[in-house]
């Protein structure tokens, strides 16, 4: 069947730094290892983390010494990464280089060098960018540069795909949408489903309801409804909206209270609001919490309020729904795609609408119309990292020719004629040609001046590659022994056949 690949994940952001991208890379890597691939991670050196490290499951992490300039992103020195990158890639016999995050310069450099070395490249975009301000224009130009010559791009939501396609002028067909996922086991609601999910894990999902549905949490008309907010308190997370909405929500609904976790520059506004409206007993501010504690905070509430102004995917609302919370969120970015409508109440990013939506959610909960106790199982079926790894594997298959081009790009026989001319450009089986002249053609289209500049950079990169081949020949580089690969694949296929 599909071959096993040697994959290098490259990103500036990785553990020990906490965050969404970091855990995405880690989870995806471990699940890919479970599927029999070999995965290494290349990141920059963090304080106390240098050299080569092994994580669970034989996941190897290279901490490359690099200067960090801003929010743990490395200095974009375009060519200086090449020697050590080449060395790692050759040692580990890498086939596919998979970069993450548009603000990580390490990722973009790795994609450029990997193409020079003739490797397949994939890029995953985790964030949304606008087109208006100067910083975005510059960032988009650089993204266009590095994505001019990439084999495939993965985005975490359809909105993110549209954004990336526009930003980097990509063919929409070479952009896949593969969402994030959650580790549902880490986000269980308090009671009921705990037992049923274990039995589901043992006896298959269809038997999850063997014990009957978990008991519904009945809310009396006078029970206190707790609204949880967990977010960094920044402008783009909508903290201003939250600050404006909280007093009105609490005024309209007597038996409600808020729990707010997170820190940031806007927390002062929140505290001021609490003091001015004398809401100390109804709004609890927990301050910054660690990711492990998120679930423990979430299960204390009934409603999760997410007032963000921009969001590519919004993992946190999936986590909240997995914890059995009813989600009230603003309808921005990729959020409307993430959860089904029976789990969410959408609001426009306006104060009035947010208050109204929260009121609707409270009323629905009080009327016991929402079966929040079922959310966990449903979310577990929707999002899993195994599924993400499966779909990412299909991307790898597509770009390395294991899946035929026609199938990967869902060609039909009829359009094959039209595609013939196109294939000439792409080289064999749906894969872009590595010939320098073809690569230069792609970079040249980046802009009147930028195109020429990028071509220059690519040529210098190629010369550097030739120099490195002479100076440090391939046969002088040791091949490192692989961690024993897993054989889980066949079991899984058998399972699939059975189901």
């Amino acid at each position, binding site marked *: 069947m599909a071959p096993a690949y040697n994959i290098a994940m490259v990103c500036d952001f990785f553990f020990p730094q906490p965050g969404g991208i970091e855990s995405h890379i880690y989870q995806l890597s471990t699940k890919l290892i479970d599927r029999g691939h070999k995965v290494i991670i290349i990141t920059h050196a963090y304080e106390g983390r240098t050299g080569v490290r092994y994580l669970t499951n034989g996941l190897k992490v290279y901490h490359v010494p690099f200067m960090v300039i801003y929010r743990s992103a490395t200095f974009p020195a375009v060519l200086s990464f090449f020697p050590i990158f080449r060395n790692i890639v050759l040692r580990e016999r890498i086939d596919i280089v998979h970069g993450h995050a548009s603000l990580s310069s390490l990722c973009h450099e790795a994609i450029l060098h990997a193409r020079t070395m003739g490797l397949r490249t994939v890029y995953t975009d985790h964030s949304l960018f606008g087109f208006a301000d100067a910083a975005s224009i510059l960032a988009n130009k650089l993204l266009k540069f590095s994505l001019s010559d990439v084999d495939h791009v993965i985005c975490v939501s359809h909105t993110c795909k549209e954004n990336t396609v*526009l930003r980097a002028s990509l063919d929409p067909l070479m952009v896949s949408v593969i969402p994030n996922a959650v580790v549902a086991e880490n986000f269980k609601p308090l009671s009921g489903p705990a037992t049923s999910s274990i039995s589901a894990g043992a006896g298959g999902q269809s038997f999850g309801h063997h014990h009957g549905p978990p008991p519904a949490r009945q809310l009396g008309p006078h029970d206190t409804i707790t609204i949880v907010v967990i977010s960094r308190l920044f402008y783009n997370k909508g903290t201003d909206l939250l600050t404006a909405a909280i007093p009105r929500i609490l005024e309209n609904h007597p038996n409600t209270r808020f729990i707010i976790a997170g820190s940031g520059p806007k927390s002062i506004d929140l505290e001021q609001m609490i003091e001015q409206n004398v809401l100390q007993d109804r709004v609890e501010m927990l301050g910054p919490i660690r990711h492990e504690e998120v679930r423990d905070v979430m299960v204390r509430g009934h409603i999760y309020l997410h007032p963000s102004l921009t969001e590519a995917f919004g993992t946190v609302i999936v986590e909240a729904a997995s914890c059995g919370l009813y989600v009230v969120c603003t309808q921005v970015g990729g959020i409307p795609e*993430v959860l089904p409508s029976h789990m969410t109440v959408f609001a426009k990013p306006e104060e009035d609408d947010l208050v109204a939506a929260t009121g609707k959610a409270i009323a629905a909960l009080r009327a016991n119309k929402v079966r929040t106790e079922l959310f966990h199982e449903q979310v577990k079926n929707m999002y899993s990292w195994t599924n993400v790894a*499966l779909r990412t594997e299909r991307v790898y298959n597509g770009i390395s020719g294991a899946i035929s081009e026609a199938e990967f790009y869902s060609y039909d026989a009829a359009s094959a004629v039209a595609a013939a001319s196109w294939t000439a450009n*792409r080289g064999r089986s749906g894969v872009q040609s590595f010939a320098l002249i073809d690569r230069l053609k792609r970079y040249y289209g*980046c802009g009147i001046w930028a195109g020429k500049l990028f071509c220059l950079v690519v040529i210098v990169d190629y010369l550097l590659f030739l120099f490195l081949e002479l100076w440090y020949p391939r046969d002088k580089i040791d091949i490192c022994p692989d961690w024993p690969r897993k054989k889980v694949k066949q079991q899984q296929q058998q399972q699939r056949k059975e189901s």
Partner: protein
Amino acid sequence: MAPPSGLHQSAIPSDFEAGPFPPLVRSSTVPASLQTHRADPSHLAPEDAFAPFSPPRRSGLFDVGGGNGSGNEMQRQRRVRRSKEDGSRSRSNRRKRFQKLLWVKQSYPDNYTDQATFLENLQRNPRVQPYDFWPLVADSTVIVQHVCSVIIFIVCFVGIFQERVSPVSVVGWGSCATFLGWLLWDFWVEQETQGAAVDGGGPIRRERSVSCGRRGYREREREPPPPRRQDSSHLGLPTPHNASTASFSSTSNLPSAASSSTNLLQDHSQQRSFAAAGSYVTTGNGNSTSNLLIPGHAHSRSVSSVHSVASQTSAARAGSVVETEEEFRHRTTQPPQGRGRAFLRLEAIKSAVLIYFTLLGLSPILKSLTRSTSSDSIWAMSFWLLAINIFFFDYSGSWGPGIHKFPVGALSTNAALMASTVLASRLPSTGQVFSLTLFSIEVFGLFPVFRRVARLRSWRYHVILTVLLVMGAGGGVGMVLGEQRGWRSWKNGLLGIVVGCLISALAMGGCSWWLIGLQKYKNEIYGPWDPARPIIISRRHWDE
């Protein structure tokens, strides 16, 4: 080989299917005709995402059904093929419509791009206001005015330098014009005050935005003059004028020090409240030369008086600035208007005389300021400084606080004064140096204030002023460029006027037309990925 649809075959709970999503208009199987796709110009079609070169564009996918019959034929074949594929599996496994959702397990590959929904929320140029030609031309007169006044200054310098014009006549005419301008200003102020008195003597209400409207202007006038207050509270101090004189002397002495005094000028405009208003009163009433100096002066005085008042009443007041202002206003409303006006006039004349004599005293020092520097450096330097003046000049025409975070106006004025200082240091005699420096203060310090007031006052004055300036600049350039002297130079001047008017008209019209023409390249893209702009209503309830 894992077929893509096979990945997503796991049963979808019926719970999920019943979402209230509006049915999509088209599915991918319906041939997408190009016409309907282009019906809404504000929506991008997917093919717009392609760059012409990279990555290689594939035709045939999106151009299917592009008008000719072959497209439909292809589409039919595709459908046939697809149904064959599906036929191998169960009949119920028909392709569902593509939904732009992540939680649904769809029978489409991950890189499927749905033509109906892809980029459907994209907006192009939703908030663009088209420019009109004549308003643009009208707005450009402000720039023309300033450029012309700079040109006139240069012409005067060249005239003095080549000893064609007597420096005394330059500064004499300039001062006369300034004095006339001041009289006019004073007259307008008088009118406004009377108009305000007729309007009604309600309690003075200060608007937060002291923008260029007439009302703001009137309020400024209604404001009682602060210096009165200052003199009573600061009687014990050595005369504040000494301090101001000192600061001014440094202004003319070292170019860098010029920034200090003009920064004061700028500072007071940033002071939002009465202090700014008071200093504006002074600015208006001040004679030509005093204007530059007095505003900062008045400002500092009024601020100090605020402090004194605040300290006096600190027990009662909670330290709120607004309340202090209130207090201050109550106290200063006591001196009658007429007396305050006369006092201000006197003050202005006094300052003018002071500046006059200070400059006179400093001129010998200025003369030898840059003796060790070559003339070429001075020309280059003054060119750049005047360019800075033109580019950073505050053309906004509004008097509000907090318009610019960066004080561009101060930079501009400083650059001009420095240019005039270095230019003046090229002149051979003390009288010439004195004249040019005084003239530069009039042109760069006071004239912009007058121009701004005239523009706010009446559009007709503004146009007349513009025409006069253009003619003056054109004529001056013509006379300076011509070699001849005597009546021939007047002929050259006439020619210069004609050419200047032509050039300025062409430039104004041409640039406006050009700007309008450039609008077609405007391509702002908005979509769901942009950060939303929160609409918060109750903010003002607790923000203030």
